[in-house]
């Protein structure tokens, strides 16, 4: 079966067979085991041993390997076709909703509606855990909505701002 896994814009086309996995031109012998410990997996890939902790979320799968956390978007051929029919691709596109990562108070909203932002630009400044935290754009686009004003108390996962594709507007 074929899967499309995307990490930070890089796509891997992965064909899962009975005992082997092909990624592009490379074929690997794999042994994959669900460990009894929640979310933990052991992967032997050409006998190279990898331990991973996996958590599936709505939009992506988080995979922790050796301290590094990878956010992987996985589609199979069916979900990919459906996504394509909706005009989405895995690595970009659609609205990007900036949510509050924690409860706090909005200090400032440096980005305005209609503003074109680059990856890394400040969108919202939130005070929480006694610290000022800058929420930055995960990718470029145009700010289509700023849902809060300075002084707004926000809950975790509350929508703060929305960034749309630049070309769409």
């Amino acid at each position: 079966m074929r899967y499309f896994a995307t990490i930070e814009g890089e796509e891997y086309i992965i064909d899962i067979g009975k005992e082997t996995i092909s990624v592009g031109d490379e074929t690997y012998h794999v042994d994959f085991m669900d460990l009894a410990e929640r979310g933990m997996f052991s992967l032997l890939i050409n006998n190279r041993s990898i331990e991973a902790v996996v958590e599936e979320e709505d939009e992506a799968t988080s995979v922790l390997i050796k301290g590094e956390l990878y956010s992987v978007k996985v589609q199979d051929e069916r979900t990919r076709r459906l996504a394509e029919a909706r005009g989405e691709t895995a690595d970009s596109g659609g609205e990007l909703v900036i949510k509050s990562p924690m409860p706090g108070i909005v200090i400032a909203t440096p980005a305005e509606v209609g503003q074109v932002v680059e990856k890394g630009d400040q969108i919202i400044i939130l005070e929480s855990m006694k610290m000022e935290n800058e929420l930055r754009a995960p990718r470029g686009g145009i700010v289509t909505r700023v849902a809060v004003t300075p002084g707004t108390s926000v809950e975790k996962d509350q929508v703060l701002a929305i960034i749309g594709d630049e070309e769409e507007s």
Partner: protein
Amino acid sequence: MREDGLLTRKFDKLLIANRGEIALRILRACKALGIQTVAIYSDADRDALHVRFANEAYYVGPSPSRESYLRIDKIIEIAKKSGAEAIHPGYGFLAERAEFAQACVDNDIVFVGPPAHAIAVMGDKLRARETVIAAGVPVVPGTEPGLTDKELLTEAHKIGFPLLVKASAGGGGKGMRPVFEASELENAIAGAKREAASAFGDDTVYIEKLITEGRHIEIQLLADAHGTVLHLGERECSLQRRHQKVIEECPSHVVDEELRQRMGAVAVAAAKAVDYVNAGTIEFLMDKDKNFYFLEMNTRLQVEHPVTELVTGVDIVQEQLRVARGRKLRLTQEDVTMTGWAIECRINAEDPYNNYLPSTGTITTSRVPTGPGVRVDSGVFPGYTVSPYYDSMISKLICYGETRGEAILRMRRALDEYRIMGVKTNIPFHQHMMESHRFHTAQFDTNFVEEKFSMDQKEADHQLEAAIVAALVAHRQSQKASQIVAPGERDTSNWKWYSRWERLRR
């Protein structure tokens, strides 16, 4: 009881006025000495390890710390109710509040820490500076606040350049101007005054020598109530972000035995100037020529105390308890020796790839590294919620080696073994630091992390494997889903199916 409000006496039951890893650390020291323990907990901490490890636990109040861990009245009341004869404040919360130390004494409870008077003096920047100057301790050269512009100009030339013009009421870099040449001075004074007037409503400024490439080196002290003050050598804490230490080590790469004894003697003199008792730390700023200047005294146990424990072999918390029980220190200065090297990485719930944004949530997996030379002080467990109420430190990972190189290699190995899921952590930051040339050669100053260290070059080595794992998990889910709807298979449990699938693939 001494005149300065210090009470020492034998006690057999102690209340820990703290939470998290430091509450556990204190509990462990108490158990080693046969002291009964009383924990306090807020709403957020009913399931915390310090509650479960203690002999007794009492509810103190709602989750926000000002309604619980900062409530002096409630804590004293619980101590009396539970029969606790002593209180250990840990670090943070009430540890450096003179009125808390005094409230303990007023209620005939031993405060495991210095006398209230010492906390008050060292907690006041100006009084602390005057007190240590009188004891012959070097401070960063500077002027008094409130001089006229003309006087400032004269003094500036005496101090020399570069220097800093600082607002007396200042903080957060406001009203602060670096001056590199005499010609810039007048403008800088005017600018700093303007900024200070608008930010604080007070345009008083003073001048201080600017220490460039400064390192933060601190001396650990232990003092008993019988007049003995010892130092346990230095810690290097230059790696900081927003004035928060992130990596500490003992000893320091830039301090040799002669300098250590010299700094130690100065630190002891500073402590004696306030009749200090119990564990404390003198923080120094060291310039590139190894001149050192008093910054402040922390009148409490420090977060980073374990690196000193591993290198000196002294259990600092047990010593605190012995001193509070009125005992004499068992060590002399000659008994204090430093062997090997220890490094501590503070593991915080924050995202190093997103401007170190704090990460809250519930920890789903927590497996700590073990093995030779590894110590983990932590209060978290699977199911623990990292809440916005308290600080974001998850644990302290401390590694020891015979040499600095061995300690670094063990730290790299331990960071690789650490598994925390549910919140983002700064483990990748530490991994990247442990691989950096500047860290290996100990070439850093207090600005290094914020100004010269970037996560951009960190290699994410296992991207392909992560993609494969995610695809395999998705594959497993879809196989499982099709199996569940297949007729005739509904009585087969998922568990059986899983193992059959495993067998089929072999």
